[in-house]
């Protein structure tokens, strides 16, 4: 009789412990998924910024723009009759 009571009590404690465990796991999972969401959106933001920077870089380095800047703003021009010297054959 006494051993039965003990085993019931143990089972009860286990049930309560596992219930608490479930609650804890659930809570953790929520936290992790929130963290995952934050990281994912940070990643997406980084990807977005990377693509925008690529486009901006491509725009700034566009040969037509560089040429226009060189000619119009800096007043550069192509050398006439260039002499080519081979530095490292």
């Amino acid at each position, binding site marked *: 009789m006494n051993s039965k009571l003990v085993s019931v009590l143990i089972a009860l404690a286990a049930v309560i412990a596992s219930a608490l465990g479930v609650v804890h796991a659930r809570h953790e999972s929520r936290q992790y998924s929130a963290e*995952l969401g934050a990281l994912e959106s940070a990643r997406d933001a980084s*990807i977005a910024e990377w693509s925008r920077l*690529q486009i901006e870089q491509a725009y700034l380095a566009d040969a*037509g723009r560089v040429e226009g800047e060189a000619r119009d703003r800096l007043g550069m021009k192509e050398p006439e009759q*260039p002499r080519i010297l081979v530095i490292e054959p």
Partner: protein
Amino acid sequence: MSGERKNMAPIGRLYGFLLMFLLCSIALVARAINLQVIDTEYLQDQGEARYLRDVTVPTPRGAILDRNGEPLAVSTPVDSLGVNPKKLLQAPEGIAQLAAVLDADADAMERRITQRAGRDFVWIRRRLHPDVAAAIRALELPGIEMRKEYRRFYPAGEVAAHLVGFTNIDDVGQEGLELSYNDWLQGEPGVKRVIRDRLGRTIEHVETVREAVPGKDLRLTIDRRLQYLAYRELKRTVYENGALSGSVVLLDVKTGEVLAMVNRPSFNPNSSEMENDGLRNRAITDVFEPGSVMKPFVVAAALETGRWHPLTPIDASPGWISIGRFSAKDHHNYGPIDLTRLITKSSNVAAVKVARDLDMQHMWSTYDRFGFGDVTGSGYPGESAGVLRNWQRWRPVERDTLSYGYGISVTALQLAQAFAAIADEGRLHRPSLVLGAANPPVSVLDPKLARQVAAMLETVTGPEGTGKAARVANYRVAGKTGTSRKSSNGGYQERRYIASFAGFAPASDPQIAGVVVINDPSEGKFYGGAVAAPLFSSVMTGALRLLNVPPDDYEVLVASAPRAAGEAP
């Protein structure tokens, strides 16, 4: 008695009530079993459907890069605006606010939304400007839904528009390499299951049903700097000569990689308004009768017989030769010349005489080996194979006209491929547009003969050649001019021409092969040597400099370096 009866009645009622309660509880239990056991799955699904949602996770399309990793097409995320009509119509003044921010017609928008009131989702405008998207968010209207989509940008714009192509609003390739490599570029959107609340906010991420697979990048063989240079020069030439269209193709002689491919007219792939006329990648899709640029190949066929060598005499007098009912003419009566001068002076008469000495099958096989009449396998959609009829169906007239490039049609890319094969000692490389493709060359001409043909082509830019304008300072250039009459409706047109130049440099160790085609120049000049050769020269000059190709005689230049330094003040 009355007391007994008093007692009797309550007992009967008691049983009555007990029975009733029993029935009630049986009914409840039955219903509970029904719900919990029998219908449970259905009900659970229905319940979850009220808050669980499968959401697609968009993934970017891969970028298209040039050979140095410079972007030619890049996707960047933007917001697209959709609404839930049921929710938005609860606050009708929201539509007017929305229309004001979007600068759209409020009545039309209201009609559109009202007509679709039964749906859960209606697109209002896709790919918003980031500022507009922020302004709409600030309105905080009910039923507004912003979805992330990707917008494709083409930083090179019209310069690489034909080659790269473009995508439609759903990010699917429509033209060019965007179309032919669509599967490679396109990622696979993922799906995730989330819990949403009554207002549609995502509360919990339940599971990832399918991981998003981002698209892969595509690296092309073209060099953006050369592409820009070729485009700028082509645009100027087409404009100055009042031409209908034009193309330039540059190939790496040693690998067959396409370094630049440009066409005019072009279009801006970043704009939604495109003119149909500019969409074609003429260098690959359009064929033309090449004219004299084909002469090196009939000469190659002649050399292969062993009966001809570069100094074999040919009599080109009296400056014309009859071919059936027509006659082929030269500009002058060149009199007695040789095989080399045939090329230098571009003599049609001599070319016909050479062809008449050749076996038709052999002549056809030489053209065929150099890739004419066959798609190059560049992987570009809508590539044209050109026309080279089988020798078994040739009449003598066709053999004669084929010697100077009529009765055959080719694309600019085919011509570039064939000239690159001469430049690379008879090794034909299939042109490739994507970096890293295995591309073993095929031998199409004996190396010794290829060098002989190349040497003849070098005389074209020599003092007596037709292509002096194609010269490049400090480099030796080999090439051939072409001027052909445009044909239409079965006849050749007066005063409508296609001017072309095909060649390679530096002649002592060829690195770059180039083809220039100018269609219908209308400002007086029309010869290949006058219209196409100067363009070839300016493009080649820049290309050799940008690719750091050493000049042919750099020993001489190195030797003269100290003197040059001494000259400086």
